[in-house]
Every structure is written in structure tokens, then in C-alpha cells.
């Protein structure tokens, strides 16, 4: 429908030239001089027609008022003309029931007045009415009616406008041969009239049709003509669409430099016209060309621009295009994880308008690849299935198109061909009559044969399809089983890692406890020997050693205790009760708790602690102690990181920790609450970031961290169906982002 709207709109644009405000001004001047009521109403009708191109609501309100005036003086023709004008307004606004009512009333009036021109226009409006609702069959029928009448009263202009209009629903139904023949008819007329304006529109539409049937050479030729005529007529919009289509065409031919040039021309044109949607489309095409040329930097700059413009134009298709190209750019650089959000954003944009097009299919399979490379096989599989579905249905459509168009020729040597066609038709009618009967018999027999053959073939194909379907289902089942096994294996591995870690880690403090205890036993004996020998000095020295050793024993005993407690905490997650919790309050409480904890440990510790809490965050159902524990871990780490940097760097460094909360929508569409803890410490190197959520992984010196904090946090967040993630750049600090579902 979008394209229909666009093409029809373009078809109507010659009218819109009158719609500039000077036209309305001059109409207003004429109105002031209007002597009779009917001439006033006729002028006002012209004003409504002009307003239709500027502001639909003003057109409707003015139109409705004048309809009432016309009814008062019983000026039925004026009333009908206005109602027909408002049909277009209501169609553009999407109010089809009102549009239908006016169409029926208009038709009645013109029929009773025997006003043929009025009826021709009414039928044409019917054509548009159905076309915009994508009911192309009815649209064609009404346009045919209007053409028939126009030809009957020999109104060349109306007939040719009809040819131009009827071609569009034909084009939308992929009946390219019919569309083309009507375009050619109109072309002959407007060439005779030397109407550059209409010729520009026609060549554009012809070019688009040639592109649809993959006749690249003729398409190129037609679009270049469209550019010539649009320049002569001074209509930038046609030049813009022609450049845009040429860019597509050259991209298909792999003439990338030309594709880029025309894309940039379309960008310049759309900019001067203020058409943001087309500007975004142009930038996307230019980026795509540069990407294919492997000029990555330039492509990235263009596509960033395209995304920005598309977002401000708020056109789903443009947002889709731009983001797909950004995704593809990352994919080409093998940055699979970075590509994913762009693809997701692209698909989210066209969720409601989606139609299975080739680009969509290709993009789905690219996204599937990204998920596969990042290890998310489940998502990879589901996107792969989407891609296959679209490609299959496209292949079917393509086969149908090939079959119907086979043998049709699109070569139109206009004038000569018109004569040929006339002659042939005449001959054919005579010949047909004579051979109709015999051909009919032969045909009937052939048809029966064909039907039988087709039936057999179809049966065979169905069997094959059934077999393939079974195979795919089996593969899918195997994949599901493997996935379950993998998940289970991962759980077991993490449990094993945990126990192995505990068993080993506890040996370090035990080493000191056992050995210092034994040393103390020996030293106690030595004290006794010294005392017996009366050497009090030696005895005192040894006693001091004994005391120091027992302090060490106690210290390492506590260390062992900490390790075991850490593990118990780890295994105990999930026993608490979920309750509705005010996140801002919880975060505030634990931020302060953590800060004071740090201050208690180190009185000299100074940090700039900032909080940015978004208002109106809904209460969510969580286990508050567990999420609190996560927050304590994240904050503890942040404080530790900035304290370390302060310890090792200059006095100018100001340790800063920022805690933020906000509402977000996750890329999978669920509303979530995000808590972020950001520090300006030294950041985390990539090889550490990889393992940071593993149990017993720590970068702190021995004895200062158990290596269980983040692993525990990870488990808690997973149990809440949330996400926890680290964003960091070495030397520039780290952000831990925690997302919990609402």
C-alpha cells in the first residue's frame, strides 16, 4: 500500500504544483470578487483541491462547510464535485467508510445529471479508493470504466490520465506487461503534447517496471530519460526517485562507484527538498556501495549518518535499511556480537509492516550467522528458519512470475507496434472464428492430458516434501536434545569447578596453620630448655616468636573460614522469598552500606559517590537480600578499583563511582530495570573480563578476595531472569550493568 500511495501520489503531483500558497492567495483574491454563489462554490472547490496537497484536515473542514452551503442553494453539481474531492482526503487519512459513502453519493448525482465527465472522474476516484486498500482487481475494473467512458466521449486528456493510473494497480499485481502497454499509450500522447512534466513521471514509472522484470539495460535508459525530463520540467522529486532507483540498479550490476554516485545525488536532492526518509535511504545505499567496495571507514561514517537521519524521519523501512547495513558492516569485520543489536533493531522497526522480501531473508540469515558465531545456537536456529521460510516463498513467487511471463516480450516499438497490433487483431478475429471449434477440441484434450500429468507430478512432489519435512523435524529434535545436554553439562562443570576450587584454595591457609602450629610446638620445647638452663633472655625471645606465630595461625584460620562461608553463600542462593521491592530505595540503602563498610575498613578512603535514580521506576518482585548481595559485590569492586588506582597514581586522580537506575526495553522486547555501577578505576583487560564471572577467579592479592563475589552475583541475577554484563576499557574504568525484568 505504501508503494501504491507513493506512485499515486507521484501521479497526482502535477496538481500539487498549483498547491503552493501563491495559488491559494490568488484563489482568495478571486473569491473576494466572486459574484454568484455557484462561482464562489466552484472557486472554493479549487481551494479544497489545493488544500488536499497541503493539509488534509483543513481540506476536510473547509470542504464539509461548503458542501452544506451547496446543499442550501441546491447546487447539486458543486456538492458532488466537493464530495469527490473529499474522497481523496478521507482515503489519505485512512477513513475508507466515509470515502465510500461520498463516492456512492457522488455517483448518484452525476448519473442523475447525466454528467459523463463527472462520472469518469468518479470512477477514477473509485480506482484510487480500491488501490489504496490494496484491492487491485476492483481498482483495475473502475479505472477501465473511466477509460472506456473517456474514450467514448473522445476526451484524450482524461483517457490518458486513465492510462497512467490503471498501469499502477497492474504494476502492483506484477502484471508488468499490461502496466507497460498502458504506460506506452500515455507516453505517445504526452510526447505529442510535449508535456515534459508528465513525461518525467512516465519514464520513471517505466524504469521501475523494467527493473521489476530485470531488464536492466532498458531500466537504466528509462531512468536516465526521467532525469532529463525532470530537469527540463524543474521537478526535483522525480529526479530524486530516478537517482535512487538508478543507485539500486547499479548496485545490482555491481557498478559500485556509479551506485554510490547516484545515491549521493539522491542524498543532495532529498536534502534540498527536506525529505528525510529519502535522505536516509540514499545514505544507506551509499554506505552499502562503500561496504561492498571494502571502504569500511567511509561506509561506517555514511551508515551512522543514515541511522541518525532515519531515526529522526521515524520511517520504519529506512530505520530497517540503515540498521541492516550497520549490522552487515560489523559482520564483515567479524564483530558478530556488535552486529546483533543492529539487526535486532532493524527487525523491530519493521515488525508490523513486514513483508517477506529478499533483503529481509538475507538479513535473517546474516543475523543467524552472528548468533552462531557468538554461541547462541538457539537464536541462530530460529532466525535460520525465518530466513529459509522467506527464501522459499520468494522462490515460489519467482516461479509463478517466470511461468506467467514466459514468452512475453517487452519490446515496445510504439507507433509501429500500435499499427501492427491493430492489423493483427483484425486478422486474428477472422482466423479465430474459423479455427475456434477445432482448436477448442484439441485444447480440451490437451488440457485433460496436462491435468493428469500435473496431478501425478504433484503427488510425487508432495511425497518428497513430506520426507524432507520429516528430516528437518528430526534434525530439530536432535538439536534440542543436544542443547539440553549442553546446559546440563555446563551446570555440572560449574559445580565441579566450585568444589575443586574450594578443595585447593583451602590448602593455602592450611599450609600456614599446620606448619606454624608445629613450629610453635617445637618452640615451646625450646622455651622449656632455655628456662631450665636459666637463659631468660632466650626464653623471652622465643615466646615472642610463639605469640607472633599464633597470630598468624588465627589470621589464616579466618581466611579459611571466609572461603568456606563464600561457598556456602554460593550454594544457598534461591532460598529467600521474592517480594515487591522499590529498587531505588534498595540501591540507595546498599550504596550507603557499602560506602560505610569501605570507610570502616580504611579511614583514609575518599571517593566521590554519585547517584542518578530515574523517577517512577515500578516496584519489582525480587529477593531483596540476594540482589543486595549483588549490589554489595559490584560496589565493593568499584571502590576497590578506584582505591587501587588512587594508590598507584598521581594526586590529581579523583576516585569516582556513579550508580544509576533507569527503565529500559531489552532488545528482546521485555521492559526491564537497569542498575549500573560505574567506576573510573583502571578498567579490566579483555582476558580478565572473559573469566570475571567464573568462581574463584580473582585479580586481588591472595587473601583479599575469594573470587566468588561476581560468580555468586551472576547466579543470583540468572535466578531473577536478569542479565549482568561488564563494559570496560582498559585504563578508563568499568561499568557493571545489571538488568532485571519488570
Amino acid at each position, binding site marked *: 500500500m505504501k508503494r501504491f500511495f507513493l506512485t499515486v501520489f507521484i501521479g497526482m503531483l502535477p496538481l500539487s504544483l498549483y498547491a503552493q500558497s501563491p495559488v491559494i492567495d490568488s484563489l482568495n483574491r478571486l473569491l473576494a470578487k466572486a459574484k454568484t454563489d455557484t462561482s464562489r462554490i466552484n472557486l472554493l472547490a479549487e481551494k479544497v483541491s489545493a488544500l488536499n496537497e497541503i493539509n488534509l484536515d483543513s481540506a476536510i473542514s473547509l470542504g464539509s462547510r461548503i458542501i452544506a452551503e451547496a446543499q442550501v442553494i441546491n447546487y447539486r453539481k458543486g456538492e458532488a464535485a466537493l464530495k469527490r474531492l473529499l474522497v481523496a482526503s478521507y482515503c489519505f487519512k485512512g477513513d475508507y467508510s466515509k470515502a465510500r459513502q461520498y463516492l456512492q453519493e457522488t455517483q448518484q448525482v452525476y448519473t442523475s445529471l447525466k454528467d459523463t465527465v463527472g462520472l469518469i472522474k468518479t470512477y477514477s476516484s473509485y480506482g484510487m479508493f480500491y488501490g489504496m486498500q490494496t484491492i487491485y482487481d476492483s481498482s483495475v475494473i473502475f479505472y477501465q470504466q473511466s477509460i472506456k467512458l473517456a474514450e467514448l466521449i473522445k476526451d484524450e486528456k482524461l483517457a490518458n490520465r486513465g492510462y497512467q493510473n490503471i498501469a499502477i494497480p497492474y504494476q502492483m499485481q506484477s502484471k508488468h506487461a499490461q502496466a507497460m502497454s498502458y504506460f506506452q499509450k500515455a507516453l505517445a500522447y504526452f510526447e505529442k503534447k510535449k508535456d515534459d512534466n508528465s513525461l518525467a513521471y512516465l519514464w520513471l514509472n517505466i524504469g521501475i517496471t523494467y527493473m521489476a522484470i530485470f531488464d536492466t539495460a532498458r531500466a537504466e535508459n528509462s531512468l536516465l530519460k526521467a532525469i532529463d525530463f525532470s530537469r527540463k520540467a524543474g521537478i526535483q522529486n522525480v529526479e530524486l526517485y530516478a537517482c535512487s532507483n538508478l543507485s539500486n540498479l547499479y548496485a545490482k550490476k555491481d557498478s559500485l562507484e556509479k551506485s554510490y554516485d547516484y545515491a549521493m545525488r539522491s542524498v543532495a536532492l532529498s536534502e534540498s527538498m527536506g525529505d528525510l526518509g529519502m535522505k536516509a535511504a540514499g545514505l544507506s545505499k551509499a554506505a552499502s556501495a562503500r561496504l561492498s567496495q571494502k571502504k569500511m571507514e567511509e561506509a561506517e561514517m555514511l551508515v551512522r549518518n543514515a541511522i541518525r537521519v532515519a531515526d529522526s524521519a521515524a520511517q520504519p523501512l529506512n530505520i530497517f535499511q540503515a540498521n541492516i547495513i550497520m549490522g552487515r558492516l560489523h559482520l564483515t569485520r567479524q564483530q558478530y556480537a556488535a552486529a546483533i543489536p543492529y539487526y535486532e533493531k532493524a527487525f523491530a522497526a519493521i515488525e508490523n509492516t513486514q513483508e517477506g522480501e529478499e533483503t529481509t531473508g538475507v538479513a535473517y540469515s546474516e543475523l543467524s550467522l552472528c548468533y552462531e558465531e557468538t554461541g547462541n545456537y538457539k537464536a541462530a536456529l530460529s532466525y535460520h528458519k525465518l530466513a529459509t521460510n522467506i527464501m522459499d516463498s520468494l522462490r515460489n513467487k519467482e516461479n509463478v512470475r517466470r511461468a506467467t511471463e514466459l514468452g512475453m516480450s517487452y519490446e515496445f516499438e510504439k507507433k509501429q507496434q500500435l499499427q501492427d497490433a491493430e492489423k493483427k487483431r483484425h486478422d486474428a478475429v477472422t482466423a479465430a472464428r474459423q479455427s475456434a471449434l477445432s482448436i477448442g477440441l484439441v485444447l480440451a484434450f490437451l488440457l485433460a492430458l496436462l491435468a493428469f500429468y500435473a496431478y501425478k507430478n504433484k503427488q510425487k512432489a508432495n511425497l518428497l516434501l513430506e520426507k524432507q519435512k520429516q528430516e528437518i523435524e528430526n534434525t530439530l529434535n536432535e538439536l534440542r536434545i543436544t542443547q539440553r545436554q549442553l546446559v546440563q553439562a555446563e551446570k555440572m562443570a560449574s559445580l565441579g569447578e566450585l568444589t575443586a576450587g574450594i578443595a*585447593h*584454595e583451602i*590448602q*593455602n591457609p592450611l599450609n*600456614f596453620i599446620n606448619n*606454624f602450629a608445629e*613450629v610453635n610446638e617445637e618452640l615451646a620445647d625450646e622455651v622449656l630448655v632455655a628456662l631450665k638452663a636459666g637463659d631468660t633472655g632466650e626464653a623471652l625471645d622465643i615466646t615472642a616468636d610463639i605469640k607472633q606465630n599464633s597470630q598468624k595461625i588465627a589470621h589464616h584460620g579466618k581466611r579459611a573460614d571466609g572461603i568456606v562461608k563464600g561457598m556456602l553463600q554460593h550454594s544457598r542462593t534461591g532460598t529467600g522469598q521474592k517480594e515487591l521491592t522499590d529498587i531505588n530505595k534498595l540501591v540507595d540503602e546498599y550504596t550507603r552500606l557499602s560506602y560505610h563498610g569501605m570507610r570502616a575498613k580504611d579511614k583514609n578512603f575518599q571517593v566521590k559517590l554519585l547517584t542518578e535514580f530515574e523517577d517512577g521506576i515500578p516496584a519489582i518482585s525480587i529477593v531483596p537480600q540476594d540482589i543486595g548481595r549483588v549490589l554489595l559485590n559490584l560496589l565493593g569492586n568499584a571502590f576497590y578499583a578506584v582505591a587501587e588506582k588512587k594508590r598507584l597514581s598521581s594526586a590529581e586522580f579523583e576516585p569516582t563511582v556513579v550508580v544509576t537506575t533507569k527503565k529500559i526495553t531489552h532488545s528482546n522486547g521485555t521492559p526491564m530495570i537497569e542498575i549500573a555501577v560505574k567506576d573510573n578505576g583502571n578498567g579490566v583487560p579483555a582476558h580478565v573480563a572473559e573469566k570475571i564471572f567464573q568462581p574463584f577467579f580473582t585479580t586481588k592479592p*591472595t587473601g583479599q578476595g575469594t573470587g566468588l563475589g561476581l560468580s555468586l552475583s551472576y547466579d543470583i541475577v540468572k535466578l531473577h531472569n536478569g542479565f549482568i554484563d561488564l563494559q570496560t576499557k582498559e585504563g578508563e574504568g568499568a561499568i557493571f550493568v545489571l538488568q532485571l525484568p519488570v
Partner: protein
Amino acid sequence: MKILVVDDEPDVKSLFEQRFRKEIRSGEMIFAFASSGEEALEYISINMHNSVLILSDINMPGMSGLELLKKIKQQHLKPPPFVMMLTAYGDAENYSAAMQLGADDFLTKPLDFIVLKDKLKKIA
């Protein structure tokens, strides 16, 4: 006999000094301590001419004990220094990694100093 102990935990120094106090007092053993692999390499480069016996932990921040072992064995010192690994992680994987890199012996924590002393005396 000169012995270099490499471990990131500071209490190790005190433990060894007390456990070997008789040997130290008699001059039978001389201990040196390094708290990281990097520090140990520096010590070895300065004291290359003396034959040194090295006891090294494995899990240390920065250079791990295994990396240290690899570097020492790559230097082809003559005579090749004797390197013994001391670790809390006595699993098969860690053991075979140490052996492949040319470790001369492998003891697990908590250390049995009677066994350790025995081994050291045999080498001397």
C-alpha cells in the same frame, strides 16, 4: 646450599626461616625470598654464578610459577638449576604441566617440611 623461595604470600618467609632455623644457624642452608616470578628472574640473573636451588609457588599474580619455570629452563644455565614446584593446586593437570616444562620435583601444600628437608638434603 643457596635456596630461592618464590611465593606471593609474605608469611612464607617467616615460615621457612623458622622451619629451617637450625640449618640457617649452622650455615648449612642460605635462604633468599622473592614475592613474584619477575623478582625471582632478577635474583637469578644477578646470582647466576652460584648454584641456586629454586622452590616456587604456581598461582601468583603477574608471572605464574609455570612461566617462571619455563623461562629458567630456557636460559640453559650451567649447571641447570634445580627447580621444585610448591602448590596448593596439586591436580594432575598442574602436575603434568610442571613436569613437561622440566620441573625437577613437585610438592603440594600444606607442605610436609620433614619430606621437604629430606629432599633438600639428598640434593646437597
